[in-house]
């Protein structure tokens, strides 16, 4: 969940890039890191094996818009895609605010895409959450490789829930679609945060109104008692 700090006037969001092995999650973060100005990014940290496969996670902190005096900070994580690292994926998913599911567009990766998506659903359920609660977007990566599956087919297998989510075609190695994806998930998170705060404000207003009504009623009773006395 987002963390609000009133002293530093900061709102922090955690975004996790999820998907099957070698689908381009780390490449997304590497491209983002190469494009964002120094002042607005931290170090890109990769906990990887000697063969450059993600072992634990990649991490990239970003500073974004300032809204009403509050700095918004986005912390981007990737999970290791390899099937054997499921315990690690569960750890990285902890307190997640938003998810980018990166799918590999190659025909022979469809089964891995579906398995990874199911695995994401299961891991969210394990921590008492669900795809309905956590905003997410889809990225269909590796569109530059020969003979990718059509977008409508990827939508058919991955974007077939009641509410369809935004999906983006991408070539993460060149940056195509990378920022469109990041901006989409960031906007979804800010919108959700704004909605929740609006609801909380309405609730608080209702409580205050109920409190003042009760006070008025009590004053009325006291006045009536005084008149009787």
């Amino acid at each position, binding site marked *: 969940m987002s963390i609000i700090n009133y002293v530093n006037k900061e709102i922090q969001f955690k975004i996790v890039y999820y998907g099957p092995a070698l689908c381009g999650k780390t490449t997304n973060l590497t491209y983002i890191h190469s494009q964002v100005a120094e002042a607005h990014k931290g170090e890109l940290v990769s906990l990887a094996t000697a063969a450059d496969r993600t072992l634990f996670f990649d991490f990239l902190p970003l500073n974004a818009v300032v809204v009403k005096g*509050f700095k918004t900070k986005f912390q981007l994580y990737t999970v290791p895609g390899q099937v054997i690292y499921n315990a690690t994926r569960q750890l990285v998913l*902890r307190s997640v605010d938003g998810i980018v599911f990166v799918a590999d567009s190659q025909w022979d990766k469809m089964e891995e895409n579906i398995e990874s998506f199911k695995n994401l659903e299961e891991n969210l359920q394990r921590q008492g959450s669900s795809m309905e609660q956590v905003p997410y977007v889809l990225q269909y990566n590796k569109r530059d490789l020969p003979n990718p599956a059509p977008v409508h087919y990827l939508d058919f297998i991955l974007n077939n829930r009641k509410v369809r989510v935004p999906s983006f075609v991408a070539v993460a190695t060149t940056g195509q679609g990378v920022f469109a994806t990041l901006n989409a998930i960031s906007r979804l998170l800010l919108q959700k945060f704004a909605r929740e705060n609006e609801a909380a404000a309405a609730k608080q207003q209702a409580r205050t109104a109920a409190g003042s009504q009760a006070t008025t009623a009590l004053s009325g009773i006291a006045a009536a008692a005084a008149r009787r006395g």
Partner: protein
Amino acid sequence: MHAMPILTIEAAESLLGVLEDFLDSSEASFALIIERGGAILGQHGEIPPSIDPTTVAALAAGSFAATKELAHRIGESEFSALHQQGKERQIFMSAVNEDTILVTVFGARTTLGLVRFYSVRAVKRIASILEHARQQSQIPIDLGDTVLDNACEVFDERDGRRR
């Protein structure tokens, strides 16, 4: 897992007060209170410019979570504290509650024993402040219509600047 409390100015200042006392007594360099997902709830002390506390928090949360899994494998629910020793600096991490960890970085000015000793009291005080904050009602922030505008780009790729 509990919902994390909203850090009101009062709660955040109380946390800073605890960290200040803790660092004064233990003579540690700096301390972070972090949520187990990796976000920072409070920080205090002399943090060298070369150290990014955000990254330290993310890695510390990962490290603590990994050792918790390790603890499960040997029949423990979790290791309540974790210590890493380097040549010049050491890190001591202790569980505050189910959602929070206290991360302390210290050098040659003090010892692990002192840091561990004073951290026990600090952890109790932090847990109590967070519990109190959790019981408070959420203070809404009005972000206005800016973020609801679909045309708004949060990150700008073209010139590498944020908007």
